[in-house]
């Protein structure tokens, strides 16, 4: 595929509170360029907020930056969120249930679930050198 057919937008975000909002602004512009409908655009935005906050909060990254790549592959948007942090094993993450959250001290643990529900495909590559979440949405 020639570069022309797979336009790429790259964003480097410093770990600063609310900086995830910069990611969703960019996603909106990319989604608009692809002519994605508003529903899909909003789903991408929510998933991106969660993936970005996870990289901010959990990576314990020294580099202090999170990289976000948007790649337009035909009618599919591929988004990669990468941190250079400690990594994690997705198999150890429990699926959250509100019934269990009510009455428990731990109300959180929803981000990955939301990402999986809102995007078409989601993949995790993680090691002690960092994590990349790759998610896609088809037009």
């Amino acid at each position, binding site marked *: 595929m020639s570069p022309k057919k797979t336009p790429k937008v790259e964003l480097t975000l410093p770990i600063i509170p*609310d900086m995830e*909002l910069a990611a969703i602004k960019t996603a909106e512009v990319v989604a608009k360029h692809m002519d994605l409908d508003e529903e899909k655009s909003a789903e991408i935005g*929510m998933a991106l907020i969660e993936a970005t*906050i996870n990289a901010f909060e959990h990576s314990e990254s020294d580099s202090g930056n999170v990289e976000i790549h948007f790649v337009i592959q035909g009618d599919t948007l591929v988004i990669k969120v990468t941190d250079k942090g400690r990594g994690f094993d997705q198999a150890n993450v429990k699926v959250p249930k509100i019934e269990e959250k009510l009455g428990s001290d731990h109300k959180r643990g929803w*981000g990955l679930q939301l990402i999986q529900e809102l995007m078409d495909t989601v993949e995790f590559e993680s090691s002690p050198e960092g994590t990349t979440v790759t998610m896609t949405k088809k037009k």
Partner: protein
Amino acid sequence: MSDFSLNIREKGDVVVIETTGYLNNVGGEKVSEACCEKMDDGKKYFLLNLENSKVVNSIGVSILIEIIEKLQDVDGKLGYYNLAPIVEKTFNIMGLTKYSTVYSSEAEGLDGMA
């Protein structure tokens, strides 16, 4: 960057809270504080107008789960109206809609909570 503010008023027994801005940890805590204060005054029906909070995150919504839990202890209710479709979808995925109600308008909310 994301100034969050609340407007609080009472309609009969119902406390109506209008939020403006990103419902994140900071916004969620502000809503929670407001609800707790009113609960101390004996209020137990809360209706959130989220028209001006079209962007939320899981941390902010988790704080709403805390509010639902506190209201369960006093037989109270939490409701919402003017939700952006993505916010409603998020509430569905997280299961909030099993323990709180999405209304289509303030009037319907006030009716439903009474």
